[in-house]
């Protein structure tokens, strides 16, 4: 059900874009209002979401320790899995954010000979990493549209990305990789019964949306070229506040742009916010030093307690009979 709805939603979006391409009067909406509006929503709401998490206090120090904590000097502390200070926390977070350390631990359960066996299962880690890194490369490559003279960094990334030099124009490695990785992530949801059972509309829709963006991008670059100069003039227009409505844009380009806009506007309200949230996760970004350094809870309030005096009052006779020392005879 959720799969059908999400695919249907994407099909509707594609039709909307094709409709938009056919109506000349809608050009300013398509090439200016929609992308700029989506971007504004993305930035504003992304920041808002981060602040809405950030303003909530972290009352307790709750890192999940995945290695030996700092202890006696002759016991080796696992700095990256149980970081004792800020510098090592940064190391742990870097491993997590750049290399998906935790996902790398993944195993898969089998019952073999009436016993649970945990076999290594790195596929999710592998394809998740491929997807995220190729997404980053693609975004960096797209920066050429927003910067007058293209910086050497972007060019060199594009050069590496097109290293295999297959076909003309060069087919980018990241394009192939992202489609492959997204297909894997989508299929896994559909095929694995447990995953299908937990998946929501948003899970399929998000992958489908990004897959749509990637596919239309590849089609434009390698099969149905668009006028790059026109696109660049338009994109530069957005960032320099000199609006420009490009001419002769294909329906494909309309679809690409609409899907990207939806993705941007959808981002802050969806699970995609894990991009920002991962940095705030208290089980990962806190040092395992809570006995070394007192963590402060800003709302730490007094609670009702049972004092020693009350305890002794209740048990004085019994304590006396047992020969235990008393504060008050």
């Amino acid at each position: 059900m959720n799969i059908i709805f999400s695919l249907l939603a994407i099909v509707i979006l594609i039709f909307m874009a094709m409709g938009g391409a056919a109506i000349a009067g809608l050009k300013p909406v398509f090439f200016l209002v929609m992308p700029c509006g989506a971007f504004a929503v993305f930035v504003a709401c992304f920041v808002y979401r981060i602040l809405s998490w950030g303003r909530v206090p972290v009352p307790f120090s709750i890192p999940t320790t995945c290695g030996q904590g700092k202890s006696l000097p002759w016991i080796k502390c696992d700095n990256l899995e149980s970081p004792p200070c800020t510098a090592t926390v940064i190391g742990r977070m870097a491993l997590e954010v750049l290399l998906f350390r935790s996902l790398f631990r993944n195993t898969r359960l089998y019952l073999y000979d009436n016993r649970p066996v945990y076999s290594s299962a790195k596929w999710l880690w592998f394809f998740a990493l491929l997807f995220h890194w190729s997404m980053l490369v693609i975004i960096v490559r797209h920066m050429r549209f927003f910067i007058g003279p293209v910086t050497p960094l972007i060019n060199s990334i594009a050069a590496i990305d097109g290293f295999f030099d297959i076909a003309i124009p060069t087919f980018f490695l990241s394009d192939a990789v992202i489609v492959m990785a997204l297909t894997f992530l989508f299929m896994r949801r559909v095929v694995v019964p447990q995953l299908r059972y937990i998946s929501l509309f948003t899970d399929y829709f998000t992958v489908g949306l990004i897959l749509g963006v990637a596919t239309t991008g590849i089609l434009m670059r390698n099969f149905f070229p668009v006028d790059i100069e026109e696109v660049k003039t338009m994109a530069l227009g957005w960032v320099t506040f000199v609006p420009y409505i490009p001419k002769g844009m294909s329906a494909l380009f309309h679809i690409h742009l609409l899907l990207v806009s939806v993705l941007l506007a959808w981002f802050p309200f969806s699970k995609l916010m894990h991009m920002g949230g991962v940095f705030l996760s208290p089980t990962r970004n806190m040092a395992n030093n809570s006995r070394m350094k007192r963590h402060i809870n800003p709302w730490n309030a007094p609670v009702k307690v049972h004092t020693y005096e009350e305890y002794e009052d209740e048990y004085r006779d019994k304590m006396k009979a047992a020969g235990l020392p008393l504060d008050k005879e």
Partner: protein
Amino acid sequence: MSIKIPKPEEMIRISYKPPQTPWMGTPVDFRPGTWSYSGAAKNLIYLDLPNPRAWQPYEEDWKLPENWKEIIIEGMRERLDKYRSFRLFLDLCVRCGACADKCHFYIGGGDPKNMPVLRAELLRSVYRRYFTESGKRFGRLAGARDLTVDVLKEWFYYFYQCTECRRCSVYCPYGIDQAEITIMGRELLNLVGCTINWVIEPVANSYRTGNHLGIQPGGVKDMLEFLADDIEERTGVRVEVPINKKGADILFITPSGDYFADPGTYTCMGYMMLFHEIGLNYTFSTYASEGGNFGLFTSHEMVKRLNNKIYAEAKRLGVKWVLGGECGHMWRVIHEYMDTMNGPADFLEEPVSPITGTLFENARSTKMVHIAEFTADLIRNGKLKLDPVRNDHLCITFHDSCNPARGMGLFEEPRYIIKNSVRHFHEMPEDTIREKTLCCGGGAGLGNDENIEMRMRGGMPRAMAVKHVKEKHGVNRIACMCAIDRSTLTSLMEYWVPGVTVTGVHELLANALVMKGEKERTTDLRGESFKEKTDDEAL
């Protein structure tokens, strides 16, 4: 009431296939053996908790307050503004499924709602419905659903089928911790008086008498004296039993299970022998006679109310610092909560071992040291004479308890003590130890008899790892550093791996400990004969 549970060979036939009906439309079946009795009214009343009444989870009517829904929603709102972890973990999940087959209850039972991701969705779906725009507008399509009595029952069933072991959070790419969700879920349930007696009775007892079992001051003293008698019988050495002693250097706090329930008692004898041998000036306390803190399975507020006693007693007795015994969730509380909640402990000194002079830098602020750290330091500095041959009748494996493992990072110290105390030690498979350790199935207040089927299911992955080393290396005893483990692993082993018994680390140490003035020891602390020394081993 005794509850029939399937035989092991039936129980191991587990299906991981999800049901035909979607999870939101699959109601809970409170079948016997899979849930715990409700909290008794007298305990709730003693603790000033809301809605005390007589009820049981299998009954249709839970006698909830009329405005229960508002109470829960308001409770959520309050917690969303107080705990970043709560808000973040509700928002962040992408349902990648990495956590799904990491939960011991899922592995042992196959119920999809025990996949941590789905157990959290039980609460997330309600959060979306009342606190997010998309949930308010699109309902089910956005993964949202109304809060109903059935949903509340589902929360109760599954949040009391989670032992807050944190294994899922090790594997989660965002560190989402089901323990946090469960803790919050149970806090919310407590707001309308839905808790289990196996949690709330120990809480009430601990609040009143100082310990979970409700033992009054004289009882604590009798029990410790009794253990001292046993020690004398086995070793010929009379150890002192200091209680509520002002002017002691160190306050020693351990779970009451250690001095009141086998096999914990042997571990407690181990502590007492060790302290006697090194001449430690320490004291037990009857007021703070509990290391464990079942407040952690109730609410943050309750954690603080119970934990308060430790610093209060340390201050009253005028000790220098506090030493803590072998316990699991007790150490989660001490390591990650105590100083924040009831500190600063500026009336105590930075902990220095009076025997070796070592400063325990890692406990500089909290001023409470784990006994494994303390003892490992003694051994390292050559302060103990150990004869590991005495433990040759034992073949040991070590179970990392969830909380010291994933809430502390205490891995090497116990192993160091064990390796110095025994000669036959074998680790269980890598995916089942250290940070990946599997729960005993009875933590977080679930170790009661009526919940026996879920305990055996939840403990199955741990038991099977023990079975593996039993068959491979002849392991006959499993060591652990947790009072709940010592109790629940015992029944778990009887069910799945007969022939394996349970021990604390300091029991092993005490078996090997050569004491000044001891008689010739022929048995271990349990009275079991040491292995006959062959010529080869006598060397």
